[in-house]
């Protein structure tokens, strides 16, 4: 035990005294601080924009006086952890406008709250990006000459001539290296958290802090993987320079190139074929045609009217002002708009009945159209998942995905938001049908009392519990762990068989 401690100490001291330690420490600290600072500013802006948007929406909601005017909006609340890991947070939409007869389509969701959309051309650099690129390089720079360097200097022979078992030496070297990297990670991270805390807009709750601690542990695990990679190469090669060049090459490949090429290849030649968007839009048009036919047939059969508007009695030319339909090829929804001019002299009770039948049907058809869109989205998602699975092989990306899952800023949590908007729409529809709003007079006219939206459900941002996040991240954490174990065993075994010539 004492010898192990001695080896650790020696490794630690020899690392800390080098210039690479000082330079690396400074760069890591400064880039983390700068990245967090920039992202905090951005988060504040997004949060302010979110609050304004929600408030404006509430104000608009108060001006609705017809049930048919209902147009609730689902706003995505900025996630404070995006300060550390931006992920999908800035590239996705942050508002879904819910219209009853229009399916929710991810592509139509709106992006707002960004003062300058052109800034998205810059890489979103956050603390995790800095860790992913810089810390990994530093870990490799610490590890590449642990064995081959000593071999070149001739000190390895001297060390091994002492009664130190080889396994103690290799474990000691690993722990010593990790011990010198440890303060870099922890201090950079703490500085980052302090900067984030200094902003009045951030309020981390205990769950957030726990998530941050999990991110810290993951970062250490990641650094350890890179260190072990450097160490393994250091055992395998006799010269320190060779070890360095090889490990830098692998570093560049895994951190920067690999996942980009994998993602591009999958997106360019998708294995799951997507239906052309145009075709889907045509299908949707077809669905709306069907809707019109089904409705007209039903109305004719049940009431004997040719058109819903015929239900207003007495039928006269001047009763209807505007009857507008839109379902143009670009539109995925179908809207019909009636304005009854002389509401006080006509009988609309039958018209209400017709609407009570027609509107739920229209919503139903919109859901069918939504299912068509969703099918395509799912194929896209499957391709994306495949690209992700291929990228996972690189531990740098496994780290990125795991952190994304834990900070809740990854693609899945964005999908949760879109899914949340979809289920919110169902709630709104249930609310309306619970109130019999479709056959109410207030659906189209406010002359006998306006529509009341008193306890209209409010959109709740979906919340992922810590446990869920961890289970989402589990496969990536396992990959990181597996890399660690494999690399460690490889380094360990190779060093035991190392030949001193």
């Amino acid at each position, binding site marked *: 035990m004492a010898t192990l401690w001695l080896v650790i100490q020696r490794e630690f001291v020899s690392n800390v005294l080098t210039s690479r330690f000082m330079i690396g420490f400074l760069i890591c600290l400064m*880039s983390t601080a700068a*990245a967090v600072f920039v992202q905090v500013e951005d988060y504040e802006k997004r949060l302010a*924009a979110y609050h304004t948007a929600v408030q404006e929406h509430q104000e608009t909601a108060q001006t609705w006086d017809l049930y048919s005017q209902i147009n609730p909006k689902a706003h995505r609340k900025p996630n404070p952890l995006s300060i550390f890991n931006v*992920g999908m947070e800035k*590239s996705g939409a942050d508002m879904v406008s819910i219209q009853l007869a229009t399916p929710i389509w*991810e592509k139509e969701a709106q992006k707002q709250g960004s003062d*300058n959309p052109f800034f998205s051309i810059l890489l979103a650099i956050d603390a995790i990006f*800095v860790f992913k690129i810089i810390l990994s390089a530093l870990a490799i720079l610490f590890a590449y000459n642990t064995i081959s360097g000593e071999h070149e200097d001739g000190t390895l022979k001297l060390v091994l001539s002492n009664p130190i078992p080889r396994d103690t030496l290799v474990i000691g070297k690993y722990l010593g290296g990790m011990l010198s990297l440890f303060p870099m990670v922890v201090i950079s991270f703490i500085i980052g958290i302090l900067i984030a805390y200094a902003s009045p807009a951030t309020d981390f709750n205990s769950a957030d802090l726990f998530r941050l601690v999990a991110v810290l542990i993951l970062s250490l695990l990641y650094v350890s993987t890179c260190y072990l990679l450097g160490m393994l190469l250091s055992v395998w090669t006799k010269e320190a320079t060779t070890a360095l060049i090889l490990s830098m090459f692998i570093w560049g490949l895994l951190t920067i190139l690999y996942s980009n090429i994998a993602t*591009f*290849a999958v997106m360019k030649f998708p294995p799951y074929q997507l239906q052309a968007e145009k075709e889907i839009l045509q299908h949707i048009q077809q669905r709306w045609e069907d809707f019109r036919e089904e409705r007209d047939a039903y109305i004719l059969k049940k009431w004997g009217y040719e058109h819903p508007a015929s239900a207003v009695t007495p039928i006269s030319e001047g009763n209807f002002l505007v009857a507008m339909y839109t379902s143009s090829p670009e539109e995925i929804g179908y809207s019909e708009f009636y304005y009854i001019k002389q509401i006080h002299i006509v009988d609309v009770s039958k018209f209400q009945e017709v609407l009570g039948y027609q509107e739920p049907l229209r919503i139903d058809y919109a859901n069918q159209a939504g299912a068509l869109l969703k099918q395509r989205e799912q194929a896209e998602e499957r391709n994306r998942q495949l690209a992700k699975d291929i990228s996972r092989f690189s531990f740098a990306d496994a780290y990125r995905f795991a952190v994304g899952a834990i900070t809740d800023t990854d693609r899945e949590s964005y999908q949760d938001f879109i899914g949340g908007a979809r289920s919110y729409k169902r709630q709104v529809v249930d609310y309306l049908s619970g109130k019999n709003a479709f056959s109410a007079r207030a659906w189209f006219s406010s002359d006998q009392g306006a529509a009341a939206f008193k306890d209209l459900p409010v959109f709740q941002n979906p919340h992922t519990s810590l446990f869920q996040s961890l289970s989402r991240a589990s496969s990536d954490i396992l990959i990181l762990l597996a890399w660690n174990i494999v690399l460690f065993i490889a380094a360990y075994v190779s060093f035991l068989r190392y030949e001193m010539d």
Partner: protein
Amino acid sequence: MIWHIAKKEIYYNLMTQRFVLMIILLPILMIANALIYGFGDNGYTAEIRDYNRKVNQGRSHIEKYAAQGLGELAMVGPAEIPKHPPQLKFCADGTDALIPHSITIAYRINWERPEYEDLVESYSWRELWSLEYLPSNHGGDATTLIKIDWAFIGVFMSFFVILFTFDAIAGERVRGTLSLMMSNPIPRGQVLFAKYLGTFFTLIIPLLIGVLMNLLIIYLSGNIPFDSDSWLRILGMIGLFALHISIFIFLGLFFSSRVSNAITSLVWLLLTWVCLAFIFPSLLGLFVGTLDPIPSIERISAEKRLQLANIDDEFRPAALVEATKLSEAPSVDNPSATRLWATYFGERSEVQTGIADARVDQQLRQVQLTRELTQISPTACFQYAMEGLANTGIVSYMDFVKQVRRYRNTFIDFIKTEDKSDPHSLHIYPVREGLSQKPVDPETVPIFKERISHQSAIFPLGLLILYNVLFFIAAQLSFLKCDLK
């Protein structure tokens, strides 16, 4: 003698394992680039088809409204104006997915106000057209922003340059060959230059081979047409590659001769490289946003609403229909009402155009400032110069915006001069009834023509040359001063 040392350097480099790594990786990247951009059904062919469709739509739009008379055309304006897709996107992608590909035309149609039929004359109108700068809708799919284009391959080349140069001097010093070489009657300057040449050729030749392979694949795929101009631009890009590589060779030689051992030199180089290639351009860019804030989108839209509401209140207050100044509909027989409507449309359009233009100007100015500041990184300069030659990136959009605005003036001038030639017209712009009602010959209506300029490449090119000179001097000085042992 220079050539002798350079040759020795080249032979030495060829034998190293990093050369093997590079010679494997570079063609892979180049072929990947060719496959990604040259094949698949969403490449240049699809873009150009889309562009042609929009151009034709624009033409038939003008034909349709020109037949309905000059007044109608003046209010409707041209159709959506598409930007010509860049051919050389595979060279510099310029985050193309995030840049708008067209400028749309906004107009609003107002229905009659029949509720007040007895109070006001019925008139349904269309407001004057205005340009609308919609941000590109990328549907949240742009998470991987690093594209495998030539510019990125150039950045990756600089990484290899570092791997080749970090021990160029320090390594020889360790091996003891530096003092042997210096014992020959060669000036130090020549030794450095020879080393530079040696490294330069070991890097540029594999690069040229990669480029040729890439171009061959793309050319054979036949999806991207090349004309003599694009070949010239590609030559220019190869020149940019050379300049960029050269900067990093000087940088490597500088650190390698400054520092006593190769490893410290590599640490310095690597960290400098990460900063120059990734951290600086983006982080500094985002930082500028905090330095020079622009009013938030909410404030702008609130201001716009307020100003438009003021105009509406003045001309046709919603609450007091009796007080409306626009109770009479414009017509050829009623010049005074027509004039009022013209003022109303004119003022609204002025507010809308003014705010939209100012907004996009502010945003683009911020981006411009970012670009100017980030040019302290040679890698960013290289990227911008590549984008300039390929005519991609945000600068090409800025240029496009300017040209579209010029076209807007041409279009309005055309309407006004055309109107002057009709003696029956009231010559009141902009209202349909105040202008000539005669159909216009669609051939005479000006059409938007995009002029492509590569001016934006000049400044970063100059900077690249400047950096070369600076780093050359730095490397020289540091090598002249360095110890041999």
